[in-house]
């Protein structure tokens, strides 16, 4: 019986990584859900908006590093973040002006807008690869670990190590700040309220004198900020590769839909549901059980519910179950 070691192993391999991943998914899903709620279409270009924003942040980070500016123990990329958000906001506003506005004026159906966003996705994807190349880029600097596995073992005398990366803590902290700011903005400010009004009933909002173009512009700017933040945090925690960001689209949409498309609170919960389900359902319990159970009962097999190959099947099974029994998601979103 060694509960402490079991707990540490579980924290190290399940709770800590899933929490950081969940926070990244939640930020991404928030952007998707805002566009869906206010502009009423599924923005497939979101993953590539994240990639583009991260590219801007990486270039700026390199600039700062070249100029000898650093952020102490924290990654320099955090300093570059506001700049990157500004660049991304300009790009998405430009895209809206050139592409989406044309279709919005025509009041086309959401399905057409989805296809339009697919086109935007491919263009952004190409531009990102063109600017920064197809290779992996690591741009994390500063102190890499808050707690290292070896340091933890030495300090506590336990057999299991616990590692917490700086980027994981930064991810969670920045995500909490971003979400708090977003909720404050949506619920407390006049612009936020007009956005919610526009989302609830477009015609009524127009009648009460809300300027639709302003609402759209503000939505894009917030989405750009969320996408860039999510992209930079993800890139800091893992690494940046345009193709991986494109692939991130799937778990992000799954998170947004599980939580309820159009519902910001749902997007956050959805992000964590998807992240934890990917990690826990396929976790091999051998190590943890060996610590908890008496020696005679210690497992020789892996005690794994299903192979990690199926982790995506798990998140999509959850997605389907939620849609079957709660078509609007865990939190009341708009039906898909």
């Amino acid at each position, binding site marked *: 019986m060694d509960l402490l070691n079991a707990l540490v192993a579980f924290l190290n391999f399940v709770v800590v990584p899933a929490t950081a991943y969940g926070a990244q998914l939640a930020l991404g899903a928030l952007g998707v859900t805002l566009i869906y709620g206010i502009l009423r279409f599924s923005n497939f270009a979101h993953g590539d908006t994240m990639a583009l924003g991260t590219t801007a942040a990486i270039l700026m980070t390199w600039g700062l590093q070249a100029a000898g500016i650093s952020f102490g123990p924290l990654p320099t990329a955090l300093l570059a973040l506001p700049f990157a958000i500004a660049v991304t906001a300009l790009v998405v506003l430009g895209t809206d002006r050139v592409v989406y506005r044309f279709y919005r004026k025509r009041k086309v159906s959401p399905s057409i807008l989805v296809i339009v966003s697919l086109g935007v996705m491919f263009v952004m994807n190409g531009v990102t690869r063109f600017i920064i190349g197809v290779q992996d880029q690591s741009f994390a600097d500063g102190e890499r670990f808050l707690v290292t596995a070896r340091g933890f073992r030495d300090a506590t005398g336990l057999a299991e190590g616990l590692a917490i990366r700086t980027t994981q803590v930064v991810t969670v902290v920045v995500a909490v700040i971003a979400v708090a700011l977003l909720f404050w903005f949506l619920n407390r400010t006049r612009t936020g309220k007009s956005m919610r009004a526009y989302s609830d009933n477009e015609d009524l909002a127009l009648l009460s004198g809300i300027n639709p173009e302003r609402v759209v512009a503000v939505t894009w700017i917030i989405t750009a900020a969320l996408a860039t933040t999510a992209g930079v945090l993800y890139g800091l925690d893992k690494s940046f590769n345009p193709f991986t960001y494109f*692939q991130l689209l799937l778990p992000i949409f799954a998170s947004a839909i599980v939580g309820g498309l159009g519902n910001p609170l749902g997007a956050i919960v959805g992000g964590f549901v998807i992240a934890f389900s990917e*990690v826990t359902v396929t976790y091999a319990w051998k190590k943890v059980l060996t610590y908890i159970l008496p020696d005679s009962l210690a497992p020789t097999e892996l005690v794994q519910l299903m192979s990690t190959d199926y982790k995506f099947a798990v998140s999509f099974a959850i997605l389907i179950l939620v849609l079957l029994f709660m078509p609007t998601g865990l939190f009341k979103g708009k039906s898909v």
Partner: protein
Amino acid sequence: MKKLLAATAATALFAGAAMAEEVKIGIILGFTGPLESITPGMAAGAELAMKEVTDSGKFMDGSSVVPVRADSTCVDAAAATAAAERLVTSDGIKAIMGSDCSGVTGAILQNVARPNGIAMISPSATSPGLSTAEDDGLFFRTAPSDARQGVVMTDILMDKDIKTVAVTYTNNDYGKGLADSFQAAFEAAGGTVTISAAHEDNKADYSAEVGALAAAGGDVLVVAGYTDKGGKGIIQASLDSGAFDTFVLPDGMVGQQLVDDIGDGLTGSFGQYPGTDSEGAEIFQGMATAAGFEGTGAFAPESYDAAALIMLAMAAAGSTDSKDWAPKVMDLANAPGEPILPGELGKALDLIAQGVEIDYIGATAVELIGPGESAGNYREIEIKDGVIETVRFR
């Protein structure tokens, strides 16, 4: 339709005739997808050989060789098949230098090469499955089968007295083939594989995979993946969580980029990739540097050799028709004969014209065995202080 058939037949007749012409060779590699960082070097290697042959003016009465590139995507069999089909039917290529990844190579072989009777030489498809694939004598590779790599990797581990390992592989023909052949060889040698788990490339997060691998345990982790894809993600996550300290890196994982990205954590990890200490490798490196690309890049020398073998075989057969030149490949690649190194393709063409037998050595000391694949020389490497050091050759 009749006219078209007649025209096609006429073209086919002329194609075999001896007159100065343009001979097109398809270079089908994954210019996009998981290998996109190494394929430019591979294509450059093949094109270097083609340029050398064309410049010599001695190929098929002064014919020139024109490379035609196409994207295999490395992972999408349908896209690769379509690309290869296009090169054969509309560009009229006479041979295929490719493809790169094992899955798409098998698809092109079965769906394009065999139906059209076009021979292909792959520089980098290493799946053991391709050794036994039906090929009508049209498929060769200058890369060794991973069955051989599994044995080499086992030898290295046994020499280091490591008996328990965990294995993770990229979920495709290459990763699965290598993992299976390694597991078979390792267990036969008395070792234990605690877990053999697949990982998908380009995924957002690898904590689930690392969690399972860590729970299974093992002295080292064998990562049969790709440097700039999932393999790197797995290593990074394992190091961060303290799950494994030492990694075994097969051919797809050996790259300076990985060492630079991961840094200190990789010190002490070891592995192997196809390579020789032959003088051909050195000469090729010099030629590549002069041509402006990295000659030590993974599979770039194999690509040069694949292209060179295709052209020499055509010269030896006096025909660009695959059914004529494909049977010559094995003879040219193996002893006996006058040894041919990189940069000596002109000399080789002269010798062939004089009827002298040649033994193509090339950049990778090519020796084709059994079903037309490289016998396999491997370079054992260890990573020390951010540098990939060659320990010995096996």
